[in-house]
């Protein structure tokens, strides 16, 4: 403990802590609490049974009342600790409750029925994870279908975006042709047209192309982002042209130069763009909301949003589904944190 404290309070220079260091660390730990607690609370809650979720004030960890199966009773019987009266200290199973009294039996002696005042009993609870919240998703809620829709959209849109953007970036960085500046200006121009301001005409175009209520209606329009072209072009400009000239001497075709030389050399930039694209498409909401109106086409985000309207009281399934929706992104984050941070800092977002 004292070593942890020494570790935490030491500064890099090895000097004693200034008051401003204390202020900084307090701020940072408050930040850790504010940023992490909501997510931790979500995950813990998602393992609670519906009954446990109704409890107020809530407990931190998920608890479930213990039950016991006794011969002659079809359903498992809930266990109670007796806190008063002549049976104080015993653990009894409840058969039924009648008004202010409960009929109970001792599991060791199932034949004798005892009548206990309900004020004298407290449920026996133990830390238990309600994994049925998760397994239910696969049976009752079509979770796999939504998961598949989200995955299909994310993977296809990312691949299409990487291919078209890298081709355009290659042309804009390695060829000197008339109209190059015009094209660059055009790409900058698209920065000014976010999807949110062309929803109506985009809807018409997608409908006319027969992509309304189809996953392709989300994939194809989403593949047109100027950010990727800029990011890749910037990186490809740093690849020396001599490499291309050498390849041309060896009679390599332009397409071969593109996918055998330029693409592999741009791998770091492509990785950054891929991560960004996966994040954007997985979390996309407004455009899918407009294009996908039938529940069999819903992405995870749409399904979550529509369930929170439908199942106002069914928090247990909703919370489990929320956790599964954020899980893939959280995993990507854990493994690729460094790339994501540099990627986002260098592109300035979407």
């Amino acid at each position, binding site marked *: 403990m004292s070593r942890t404290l020494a570790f935490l309070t030491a500064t890099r220079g090895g000097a004693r802590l200034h008051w401003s260091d204390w202020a900084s660390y307090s701020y*940072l730990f408050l930040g850790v609490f504010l940023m992490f607690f909501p*997510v931790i609370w979500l995950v813990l809650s998602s393992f609670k049974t519906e009954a446990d979720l109704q409890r*107020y004030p809530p407990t931190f960890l998920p608890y479930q009342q213990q039950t016991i199966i006794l011969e002659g009773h079809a359903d498992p019987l809930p266990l109670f600790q007796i806190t008063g009266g002549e049976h104080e200290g015993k653990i009894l199973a409840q058969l039924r409750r009648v008004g202010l009294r409960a009929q109970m039996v001792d599991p060791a002696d199932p034949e004798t029925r005892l009548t206990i005042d309900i004020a004298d009993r407290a449920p026996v609870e133990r830390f238990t994870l309600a994994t049925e919240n998760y397994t239910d998703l696969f049976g009752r809620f079509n979770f796999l279908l939504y998961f598949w829709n989200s995955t299909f959209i994310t993977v296809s849109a990312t691949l299409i975006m990487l291919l078209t953007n890298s081709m355009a970036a290659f042309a804009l960085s390695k060829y000197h*042709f008339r109209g190059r500046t015009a094209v660059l200006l055009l790409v900058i121009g698209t920065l000014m047209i976010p999807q*949110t*301001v*062309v929803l109506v*005409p985009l809807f018409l*175009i997608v409908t006319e192309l027969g992509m309304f209520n189809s996953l392709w209606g989300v994939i194809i329009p989403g593949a047109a982002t100027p950010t990727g072209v800029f990011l890749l072009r910037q990186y490809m400009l740093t690849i020396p042209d001599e490499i291309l000239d050498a390849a041309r001497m060896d009679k390599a075709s*332009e397409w071969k130069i593109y996918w055998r030389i330029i693409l592999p050399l741009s791998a770091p930039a492509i990785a950054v763009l891929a991560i960004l694209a996966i994040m954007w498409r997985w979390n996309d909401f407004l455009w899918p909301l407009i294009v996908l109106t039938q529940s069999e086409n819903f992405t995870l985000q749409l399904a979550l949003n529509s369930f929170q309207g439908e199942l106002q009281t069914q928090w247990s399934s909703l919370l489990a589904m929320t956790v599964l929706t954020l899980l893939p992104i959280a995993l990507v984050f854990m493994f690729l944190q460094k790339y994501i941070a540099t990627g986002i800092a260098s592109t300035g977002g979407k």
Partner: protein
Amino acid sequence: MRSKGDSILLQVITPIMRAIEIPMLGLQRLLGINHLAWVFLLPNLLLFGLFAFFPVILNVSYAVTGGANVLLVDRPHVGAQNFAQLLDCANYLDPNSCREDKFWRAVWNTTWFVTLQVGIMVAFSLLTAIVLNREIRARGFFRAVFFFPVLLSPVVVALIWKWILQREGVLNAFLDWTGVGGYNWLVDADWAFGWSVFLSVWAHMGFYTLILLAGLQAIPRDVYEAATMDRASAWRVFRRITLPLLSPTMLVVLVLALIKGVQTFDEVYAFTGGGPGTATTFIIQYIYEEGFAGAPRLFGLAAAASLLVAGVLVVLTLVQLWLNRRSANG
């Protein structure tokens, strides 16, 4: 860093790329190397044209036509009527006096929201960036912690906070325990609005912190060392060195945050649904509801409103590009 996943990806991609090579070689012979650039550009330009530029032109056609039909040939020309309907107001400050009162409520909600959200978010991002730029332990960890919510989807963010803020949620349990007493937050218009601002700051501040931190780290160390030699106070160093040298980054952050703030929809829509009443209905939600959620679908009104938003965004984006250029040159 070759992994198994890479090689599977290569196995899928290689035959596709090989197949494209044959027609591309033909085109190369036909057009010559320099014209081939257009072939490389074509797919991307098609996407941009079809899903970005063409819609902008179409948007104008929608804005000057009426009715509930989506096909332009079925839509009667109404001139500037949609704009007139949106802008018909006795007093712009009072939505009740406007013909399209919902639009003006959304406009004012968005204005207030953007002002509060951007102000609070940039202030906290700056504070966090400054703290993270100090000589602290585990900086990478703390940076990741503040950045983490940026990756969460808007719907997930909304549900996380809805679960905490609900009547019998953990926040109310805590407030009851301390004796302050819980509250039904999302039923009260002002609190729902306030929590929407909070949730939006919570979800996005990590992104701006990252940009500001990069800006802080770009300030040369020797400037600070010189200041320490001159025994300048910490506050003076901050006022006279850090802030002026950081101001280009600050401006970029401010404009970026404004551009995104004006377009806020997802997380607040999933959080409050725009309610209670219209307390948290913002401009993009207005467009969505007029054009897509309501019946009849008023595409003309939605398109006209989009054009007004687009005007604001174009100005902001031009400012951003100009700032980027200036900071790149300077």
